[in-house]
């Protein structure tokens, strides 16, 4: 074990310490520690290029050569496992080590171009820095440097300047060991050795951007950032990724009020040092196509309005509807914003008709969240996945739906964790986790969970086993109930993994009918009293349980709701009719930062801040708070909470509207120790005939938060329909298939997948050429008609 390697468990006291002496200073280190890590612990920095604490040692660059007592040749500190009493002498105390390092540094600079003044890495370059600290002042090399055509695309997003490469193999090892996408390889040999890909097989990885960040020279650059800025001109702010519930720690860099790049930041407990390409590259939306001014609908058309006018119209409209308002809080909201929405709904509008689940959901899910998730402390964390004997995934495709969970599960699987997935087939993501598919048709997971093979059940009964249910389980009747039963009978921990960054925070903030902040049941007297006191209102002023989910939708459709307050919602996540239903309402207020299907029908549109313009907190799937600061401190746009505060003022009420005030109020409330609503199980769905649709949102698709980076979009996976050869044969389907639902049809190329069960077809939920809700009018687990497709 290396100290930084086992990020989650490194706090545990190692059982056996051995003593090593580095430059004359003794230190106790755990057995198995590498010399370079032992030196780091003493603050002794040995130069390195190929060494990376999260990658297997390769000892290729030889920059870290040190002298070890009793060993004739200098040894690479990055691969040297220390032994008790070992005497290590670094460049600070050994001429052999210093000369060896100088020699290597001189060699590394031979063929490296001195284009630092135009290189993206210049200013933050390990080669530059270490050449300064341990290199010779002047090179003796007078021959011609090796040249390569530059740059080449290893993917649409990643560019490679081969002449800058020092062959450290960090990128290739990352691709192979961490991401499991080994398309990046070293080719050729000797001085012609170069990183490359096979012909026509680009570096097709959701995690490709990490290679840029760990490249110790400027060989790998992104099309987005290349030549845009110098590191020393950038202002860096620690942030949290808003794209999913993985909770990555990021660093956002900007220059002259323009975000130039985002990097994965180091958080051993969560994302280690990695992030996905969506989190890294999907940021142009933060600044492009923004709503700048409030708008109100006049004679059927939206027109720009002043803030006072728009707030006045919105406040009057909402006041008129009062308790007949539905408040829809999307998964993009921060916890503080979600808190503001629910407080506004309950304390000011007097309604409990609130739901953060702007996506397919169910009352079974509501009961599950209320009884098992809302306001609970962290039960399963990333490090638990690493140490788990087995992890069972239910309606959850980590690589697409929570990529850092995927990376951690892949890491776990490499050290023995068995991964099982209850799904329609073994995806590539599952293969990369060495996982086993337990076949279940979408929508029929419950009965499969109830009848798991005994060996799987036995593995789940081992201490530390984890069951992870994805948010899609809500669309499968009885699946969550079966998962609860399975967890109870095996003792495995149960984790719920929503897709959107804001969902878990919104749940804990109380943005769900019947659930006050912290998971307090709205029907619980003590809970009501606590909340009423905190909000300075009478307990009787708190509403009675309202509607959510399907009931709320039905009420809207039936005309029992007259207005809606909508914020942070991605309309593409909604089954089609949910957005359509809003059209029937008398009055809709939309808090948005971009035009959307909701702003199109809204009566008042109030622009709000994006994550870079506000501070806030997301709770990741673990339930871990991921607070982030404001990147642009002089941003002119207010957060949702701020705008809701203005609305409250217009309604002669007050509610906290700054992040600080809201956090303070949440802090005062504290966790809920009272009772929770019991879980109400739902019976499994019975199988109906027909082809079932399996679908989820791919990591890179038509999501509005991915707009603005064509290079990122070009790395999205091609839109295909997957089915088993048997299904294709039975329905006489060749190269293309036509999927047909009540809302229409799409024709897609077919990818036959031996691992898929018969009677299921998979299609991406919101990708180019296939938007399931809009194009087919069906969703996950519904039946579709498939026919041979002809041409597209």
């Amino acid at each position, binding site marked *: 074990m290396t100290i930084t390697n086992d990020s989650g468990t490194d706090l545990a006291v190692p059982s056996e310490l051995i003593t090593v002496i580095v430059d004359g200073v003794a230190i106790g280190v755990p057995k198995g520690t590498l010399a370079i890590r032992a030196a780091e612990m003493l603050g002794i920095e040995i130069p390195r290029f190929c060494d990376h604490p999260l990658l297997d*040692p*390769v*000892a*290729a*660059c*030889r*920059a870290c*050569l040190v002298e070890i007592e009793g060993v*004739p*040749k*200098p040894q690479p500190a990055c*691969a040297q496992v220390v032994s008790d009493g070992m005497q290590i002498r670094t460049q600070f105390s050994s001429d052999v080590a210093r*000369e*060896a390092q100088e*020699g*290597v540094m*001189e*060699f*590394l600079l*031979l*063929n490296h171009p001195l284009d630092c003044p135009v290189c993206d890495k210049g200013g933050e370059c390990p080669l530059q820095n270490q050449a300064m600290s341990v290199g010779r002042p002047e090179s*003796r*090399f007078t*021959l*011609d440097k*090796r040249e390569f055509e530059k740059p080449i695309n290893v993917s649409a997003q990643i560019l490679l300047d081969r002449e800058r490469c*020092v*062959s450290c193999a960090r990128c290739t090892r990352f691709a192979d060991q961490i991401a499991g996408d080994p398309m990046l*390889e*070293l080719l*050729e*040999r*000797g*001085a*012609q*050795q170069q990183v490359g890909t096979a012909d026509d097989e680009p570096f097709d990885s959701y995690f490709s951007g990490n290679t840029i960040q760990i490249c110790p020279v400027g060989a790998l650059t992104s099309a987005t950032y290349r030549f845009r800025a110098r590191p020393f001109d950038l202002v860096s702010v620690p942030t949290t990724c808003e794209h999913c519930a993985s909770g990555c720690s990021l660093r956002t860099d900007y220059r002259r009020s323009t975000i130039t790049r985002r990097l994965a930041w180091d958080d051993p407990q969560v994302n280690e040092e990695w992030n996905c390409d969506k989190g890294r590259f999907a940021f142009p939306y933060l600044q492009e196509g923004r709503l700048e001014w409030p708008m109100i609908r006049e004679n059927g058309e939206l027109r720009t309005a002043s803030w006072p006018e728009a707030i006045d119209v919105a406040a009057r409209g909402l006041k008129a509807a009062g308790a007949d308002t539905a408040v829809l809080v999307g998964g993009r909201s921060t916890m503080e914003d979600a808190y503001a929405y629910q407080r506004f709904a309950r304390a000011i509008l007097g309604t409990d008709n609130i739901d953060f689940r702007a996506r397919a959901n169910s009352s079974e899910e509501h009961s599950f969240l209320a009884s098992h998730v809302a306001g609970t402390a962290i039960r399963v964390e990333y490090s638990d996945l690493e140490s788990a004997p087995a992890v069972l995934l239910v309606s959850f495709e980590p690589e697409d739906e929570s990529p850092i969970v995927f990376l951690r599960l892949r890491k776990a699987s490499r050290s023995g964790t068995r991964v099982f997935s209850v799904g329609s087939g073994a995806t590539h993501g599952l293969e990369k986790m060495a996982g086993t598919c337990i076949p279940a048709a979408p929508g029929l997971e419950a009965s499969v969970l109830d009848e798991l093979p005994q060996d799987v059940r036995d593995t789940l009964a081992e201490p530390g086993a984890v069951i992870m249910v994805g948010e899609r389980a809500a669309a499968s009747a009885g699946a969550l109930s079966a998962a609860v039963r399975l967890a109870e009978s095996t003792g495995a921990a149960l984790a719920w993994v929503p897709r959107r960054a804001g969902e878990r925070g919104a749940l804990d903030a109380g943005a769900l009918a019947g659930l006050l902040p912290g998971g307090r049941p709205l029907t619980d007297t003590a809970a009501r009293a606590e909340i009423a006191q905190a909000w300075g209102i009478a307990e009787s002023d708190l509403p009675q349980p309202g509607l959510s989910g399907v009931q709320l939708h039905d009420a809207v459709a039936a005309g029992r709701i007259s207005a809606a307050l909508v914020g942070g919602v991605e309309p593409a996540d909604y089954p089609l009719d949910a957005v359509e239903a809003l059209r029937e309402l008398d009055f809709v207020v939309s808090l948005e930062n971009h035009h959307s299907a909701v702003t199109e029908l809204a009566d008042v549109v109030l622009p709000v801040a994006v994550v870079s313009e506000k501070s806030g907190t997301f709770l990741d799937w673990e339930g871990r708070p991921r607070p982030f600061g404001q990147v642009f401190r002089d941003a002119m746009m207010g957060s949702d909470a701020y705008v809701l505060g203005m609305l409250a003022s217009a309604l002669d009420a007050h509610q906290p509207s700054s992040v600080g005030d809201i956090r303070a109020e949440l802090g005062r409330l504290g966790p809920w120790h009272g009772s929770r609503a019991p879980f109400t199980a739902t019976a499994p769905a019975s199988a109906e005939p027909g082809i079932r649709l399996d679908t989820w949102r791919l990591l890179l698709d038509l999501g509005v938060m991915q707009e603005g980076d064509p290079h990122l979009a070009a790395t999205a996976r091609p839109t295909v329909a997957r089915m088993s050869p048997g299904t294709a044969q039975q329905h006489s389907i060749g190269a293309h298939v036509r999927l047909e639902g009540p809302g229409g049809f799409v024709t897609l190329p077919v990818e036959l997948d031996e691992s898929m069960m018969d009677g299921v077809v998979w299609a991406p939920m919101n990708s180019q050429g296939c938007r399931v809700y809009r194009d087919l009018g069906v969703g996950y687990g519904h039946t579709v008609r498939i026919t041979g497709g002809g041409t597209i």
Partner: protein
Amino acid sequence: MSTPLTPVITEFWDRPDLYTLDGYRAVGGYQGLTKALQMDPDDIIAQVKESGLRGRGGAGFPTGMKWGFVPQGDGKPHYLVVNADESEPGACKDIPIMMANPHALVEGVIIASYAIRANHAFIYIRGEVPNAIRKVEFAVKQAREAGLIGTNIQGSGFDLDVVVHSGAGAYICGEETALLDSLEGYRGQPRLKPPFPAVAGLYASPTVINNVETIANIPYIVDRGVEWFRGFGTEKSPGFKVFAVSGHVKRPGIYEAPLGITMRELLDYAGGMRDGSDVKFWIPGGSSVPMLTPEHLDLPLTYESMAEAGTMLGTGTPMVFDQTVSVVKAVTRWLEFYKHESCGKCTPCREGTYWITGVLEKFEHGHGEEQEMETLTSLCSQISGRSFCALGDAAATPYPAAMKYFRDEFVAATHTSADEQFDPIASYVFAGAAAR
């Protein structure tokens, strides 16, 4: 002549049918195997240890000790891999063995596999020698048909499959761990050690990797015994060696003699230097070992005596150069070889060979600069002992040795090209004595 030739592996090379099973059996082949299969495997390992046989691939590691490193009863499959990737400039003894006496190799493979409890053996042959590959494949096929390879070999209960694998033309694949990577289907680059192959080699299982000649020795040791084997050679370098003499000698070729024979004696067997020519410098075993001069001709060719002289026995394939050869040019050619064959994995070898070769080419063309001689010396010391594997060390060998004995030629190469100093035509085989 004091030291007689002792043909063992090469004894019957004049038999045209030696490469066939019948021919090999006619001269006593596979008797060692029959004996071996009646022995306890551990006794064979002990016998090889006692024989003192040292690896013939160049490093001279004791073979029996290597076999003894394989953990027994570990429940993992064991593998024997024969390194037949002979690619070093000057080395030409494994390929002749495979061409002329492939069954000695195959018999040795079976015995060695039996000893280390391997049920799979691989013979990794350099890809550029299809004739040798065909000969070995033919021998393996015949041995399989005769029940010498397969299941329950000669009723012993021992099963063995032998795979002949062709390399794809990379010197680095002669490095044992790079060979394993290549054999597994990866790009041939050396692996980090530890773990050593004896613990985690091919497919992460205990693996013994031996040179062709080493393995070809085994049947004779098992058949004829330790005492017989130790009757040849010296205490520290027992046995005989297939010496392949090349260069400006009258009869270049294979001479099997006890270790300890001198280069002068080998030169005599090879007919002496060509007419009108004297030894200028020579290398005992492949370009990776430092060169020697005529004053070293009477040193015994043993692992220990060569080490004392500051070189190595290496593959035991001496190249002899006469006065027509430019040392600068010879060293440049060798470095060009290492530059071309450097796998690229580690910085010192990848960049160092690139740089040294470039500077040497300047010298070759008479454009060397005096201070660059010092630069080259320091570059070699920046590679030697700092590279990932022995390829880098080997590349750092020729220049310092050449400087030790022939510094003047490098000084001259600062103004006069190698071809002007030494007429290249004169060094050719076809050049008459007059040209010299």
